[in-house]
């Protein structure tokens, strides 16, 4: 098993004919993801690397039975693409696009409540279940299949930590980049829930950063509801107040949003919290050895 994407994933790429869409479609195809369709309005009837392109999600879903979508359309049109994916029954939607307006995302997030679907992102690297399905822009080579779930607000930091695991021979069940924006479709807790329900996942690594209080909420959830052990890492201890550190959502704007506060909440909840990426590997190794 895995979460969100797996052997059953039938992927449609929204914005397949754009620069990013083309590049990453190629990469996902190389890692054997079942890409069944692409959508670009006005390009219906064409194909890209053997993937048929449709004008609308309705057509794409009708013709190909797609159940998952990944979005590469420009930020101004991303919310519209998400609504279209939701309305045509996508179960998992990964919006890779960066720079989606926050008011657009508030509307999307509140509409999501009536849909039985999971939106990952926006401004995220996507989801990968090694050797099963790659719906992401992540470097597939650094992953190996295994039993550690990863959930992260950051891209390259995830790669760094996955690499630490892989180098130690520790594989991953699924890695989920939930995105670095202030309003995202899916927070830590929803992903933690899925990992908790996944029999294959024996340990979860949660990678947080400054901004918001999602890590604190997650800490509470882990303490009260999870049996699967969790290892955490938080970036941004040295970030000054009021400055955006790369990600739109990574900004210290009050006491709760500092790395310090998050880290304390995690430790208080009994969650092993690494002080650097390397230590994540060590903590996970300890847990897995202890369990076996």
């Amino acid at each position: 098993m895995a979460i969100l994407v797996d052997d059953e994933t039938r992927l449609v790429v929204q914005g397949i004919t754009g620069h990013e869409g083309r590049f990453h479609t190629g990469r996902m195809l190389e890692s054997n993801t079942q890409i069944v369709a692409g959508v670009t309005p006005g390009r219906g009837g064409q194909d890209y690397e053997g993937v048929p392109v449709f004008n609308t999600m309705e057509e794409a879903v009708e013709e190909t039975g797609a159940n998952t979508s990944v979005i590469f359309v420009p930020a101004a049109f991303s919310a519209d693409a998400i609504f279209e994916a939701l309305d045509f029954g996508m179960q998992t939607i990964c919006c890779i696009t960066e720079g989606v307006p926050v008011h657009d995302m508030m509307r999307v997030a509140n509409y999501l409540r009536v849909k039985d679907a999971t939106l990952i992102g926006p401004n995220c690297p996507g989801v990968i279940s090694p050797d099963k399905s790659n719906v992401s822009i992540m470097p597939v080579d650094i992953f190996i299949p295994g039993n550690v779930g990863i959930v992260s607000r950051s891209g390259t930091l995830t790669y760094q930590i996955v690499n630490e695991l892989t180098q130690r021979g520790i594989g991953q069940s699924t890695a989920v980049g939930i995105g670095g924006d202030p309003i995202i479709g899916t927070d830590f807790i929803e992903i933690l829930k899925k990992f908790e329900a996944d029999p294959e996942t024996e340990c979860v690594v949660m990678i947080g950063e400054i901004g918001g209080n999602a890590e604190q909420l997650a800490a509470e959830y882990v303490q009260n509801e999870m049996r699967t052990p969790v290892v955490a890492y938080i970036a941004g201890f040295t970030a000054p107040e009021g400055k955006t550190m790369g990600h739109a959502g990574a900004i210290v704007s009050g006491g709760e949003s500092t790395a310090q506060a998050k880290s304390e909440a995690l430790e208080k909840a009994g969650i092993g919290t690494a002080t650097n990426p390397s230590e994540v590997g060590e903590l996970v190794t300890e847990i897995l050895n202890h369990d076996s």
Partner: protein
Amino acid sequence: MDLYEYQGKELLRQYGIETLEGIVAASPEEARAAAEKLGGPVAVKAQVLTGGRGKAGGIKVAEEPEDVAEAARQILGMEIRGHKVRRVLVEAGAEIESEMYLSIMVDRAAKKSLILFSTEGGIDIEEVAEQNPDAIVRIYIDPLLGLLPYEVRELTFAAGLEGDIAKGVGKTLNNLYEAFVEGDASLVEINPLVSTKDGHVLALDAKVTVDNSSLFRHEDIAELHDVDVADPEEQRALEAGLQYVKLDGDVGILGNGAGLVMSTLDVVAQAGGEPANFCDVGGGANAEKIATALDIVASNQQVKSVLFNIFGGITRGDEVARGLLAALDRSDTDLPIVVRLDGTNADEGRRILAENTPENVYTEQTMLDAAKKAVELVQDGGR
């Protein structure tokens, strides 16, 4: 993007919110002319993108045009929390009866808009929140429904407002919510929102932050962006498409990816160093961009060593190494640079670097070792 008080007020006025009459002045002479035009006592207010200007002496009240000019002279050029004052707002007076607080912001956890209101205005809302949390009314707004009439009543009743003030605050709230949504703001704050003796409710200050991601549909607001106040290094980075934040330390830091760079700063601090900046060069191995980033980091005279932390993901380590060498070639910095390269094809990348590195470049295998080395280099005197 933060708006100046006078810009924020202009936006609020477009949505029907009352403010006092005011004129922006960039010199004592302009301030004097403004005072003459407005008549009566005026406030001279520093226009800076930071709080605390009152305590810093950035607001003065004067009546005679000569005194107004003098006040402007004192305020213009002041530094308030590192922000230089280049303009003042000369604003007419009002007979204030009460000071309130009203703001709307994006609430991340709730994924809704959050309205905060307090009858204790004019002071820092965080102080109110600490000392008298019950004095703050909080209302969450579902973006799909917008602000509902009952929510406005909820606020005025909970705050104990009555009569004209209740009506004025209700009207202001409706207008402010419209401005917030249509202006794609992530924060609109009126502190203080005042009621006057003649029954008006008006915005005496305005803090507006517009979502940068929305600027494509707000050309008018995007134009307000005040380039010459930004730190020149930050400005150059912005133009080059780099994420750059200047800090106070002496270890320059570059890396690919916001999270990884944040983590690198932390690791440097843990190793006893002080980061001089945050600089995310993004994905790919664009030599041009890396060279520009190096130049910007090096142009900070405080920087004594540089740590370049790269995780080769989609861009393979060998390509990154070649891009980095090309960038070092273009850059003429003599700063000691620690390069740590990991990820896809890292071995090959490290080999290429080892064969070609200039004298001032050191390579390390892990983030921790690289951080230690960079700190060591500073302690050894750096450049």
